[in-house]
């Protein structure tokens, strides 16, 4: 495990070293949150609630999105695609190292920095908007939410890892990854709560792992589901995680076998 811990520490140093990239990333995320906040504020207008969400809950949903984006939606997909396409992955494959563990360590470093930044941003936004947030009082809710978010983050990581591994077979795997990320934003509830969607579409999405990444964890946080239901959802999340982990490992292992180690 020590190697992954050292990789995490080095990646942390490198993330902090790339100051402009970090600042640009944060500004981009901040702009999305401000847009969503303005959009939902306009929709709610003078009403006390909208689609079953009070003003405080909706504001919390939007602000929680900022933290969840930083924690859940930061995989190493593009890095994997780039390293396979350029052949740089060779240098990892010949070392006594599990590439996915290494990538996960790097991802954790990225998450550490981005989550810290997003909490700071959310604090500023909460202060600017008067601080009317929904914060659960029951410690069990925090525990369930934390568990759900960790599982979400791992589901995203391995799902993205699996799609990025297509780069072993094609030099055009950036396409599927781009589509995945775009669809993900919508299907995970990262633009709006999925309650907005027609029931049939929502039911269809619930058959996929996407709603488990943002929508369900935030509903757990907002105590929109009972503890029993939250536990059931976490169980389903664990099943999805097992499925995407197995899928990612299988695709990656097959990819490595058919890898042509491009370039001299």
């Amino acid at each position, binding site marked *: 495990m020590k190697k992954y*811990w050292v*990789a995490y520490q080095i990646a942390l140093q490198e993330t902090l070293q790339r100051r402009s990239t970090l600042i640009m990333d944060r500004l981009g995320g901040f702009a999305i949150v401000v847009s969503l906040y303005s959009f939902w504020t306009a929709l709610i207008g003078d009403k006390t609630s909208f689609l079953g969400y009070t003003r405080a809950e909706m504001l919390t949903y939007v602000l929680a999105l900022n933290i969840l984006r930083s924690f859940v939606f930061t995989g190493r997909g593009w890095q994997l695609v780039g390293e396979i396409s350029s*052949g740089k992955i060779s*240098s990892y494959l*010949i070392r006594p*190292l599990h590439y996915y563990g290494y990538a996960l360590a790097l991802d954790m470093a990225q998450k550490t920095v981005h989550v810290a930044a997003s909490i700071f941003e959310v604090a500023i936004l909460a202060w600017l908007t008067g601080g009317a947030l929904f914060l659960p009082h029951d410690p069990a809710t925090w525990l369930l939410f934390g568990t759900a978010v960790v599982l979400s983050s791992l589901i995203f990581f391995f799902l993205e890892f699996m799609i990025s591994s297509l780069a072993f077979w094609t030099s055009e795997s950036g396409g599927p990854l781009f589509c995945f990320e775009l669809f993900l934003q919508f299907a995970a509830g990262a633009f709006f709560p999925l309650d907005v969607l027609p029931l049939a579409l929502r039911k269809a999405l619930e058959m996929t792992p996407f709603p488990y990444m943002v929508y369900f964890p935030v509903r757990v946080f907002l105590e929109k589901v009972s503890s029993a239901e939250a536990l059931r959802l976490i169980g389903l999340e664990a099943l999805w995680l097992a499925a995407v982990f197995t899928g990612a490992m299988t695709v990656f292992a097959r990819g490595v076998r058919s890898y042509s180690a491009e*370039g*001299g």
Partner: protein
Amino acid sequence: MPLAIETKGLTKDYRSPIKEPGLWGGVKSLFDRKYKDTRAVDGVTFKIEEGELVGFLGANGAGKTTTLKMLSGLLTPTAGEATALGHVPWKREPAFQRSISLVMGQRSQLWWEIPAYETFKLNQAIYGLDEADFRRNLDELVDLLQLGEHLTVPVKKLSLGQRMRCELAAALLHRPRLLLLDEPTIGLDVVMQKAVREFIKSYNKRSGSTIMLTSHNMTDVVELCKRVIVIEKGRLLYDGQLDKLVERYADHKIMRARFTTDVEPADLETLGTVVKYEDRTVTIEVPRAQMAASAASMLRSYPVADLNVEEVAIDDIVRRLFSHK
């Protein structure tokens, strides 16, 4: 001596898409993609003993790098067998991975934004080196490669030569028993090339590690390798001592004569092939069997001030092999 590497009929095919030229070719390939199979390595068989330093030569695309990639476990062969340090490389067993290193001159394992020392610390953890071993190996490499102050500078700020030396240090920290070097001096200036060559030679002597090296720089090969393996279009062309290449592939010798007066170069064609005539000095390629007669004729018929007979330079022979002459 135990064997470090043994291959039998090692073969690797690559599959790549074919696209007809132009926009229409692009549209067609969208619906009807055709593929071409290319045999990069074709039934290569050789053995290398532990501690040997072997040059692996061939023109671009001859299959050198593909062979190295199979021996390091990066690629699985289409056919044939190989063992390296007693392991089947492409099974990627950790014990094997801890004993080898592959350095590709054009690739980097160093982290770009931070000093090379951090990559060394990561490799310490990856290869499970304890602090004492890490310190000892690092101190030795820093000394041999003159890394000194470069260790604390972000890698992106280093020159190519400094980076290459850090790259070598990163690859050797765990003291691999088998070192595969692919173009280790590519892009370096002559001073750095010499430093890297001297390091490789000294590392081979000190550690007794087996080294297999590919290079287009003939000075690397001539100075480092007694034995060479030459491949062409994926097939083994020659495996043996470097100096024996001369006997096998040079069917002629070089005769150089300096004259006291001007001589008509065309007249000298009866002695062999005139390569150059300049300042009353001629260079002639003479078939081996005809050498004694040509030298005698030269001395007898021309106003010779000085006469030399030489073997063809090794790098010339290898260059000829590369260029399929």
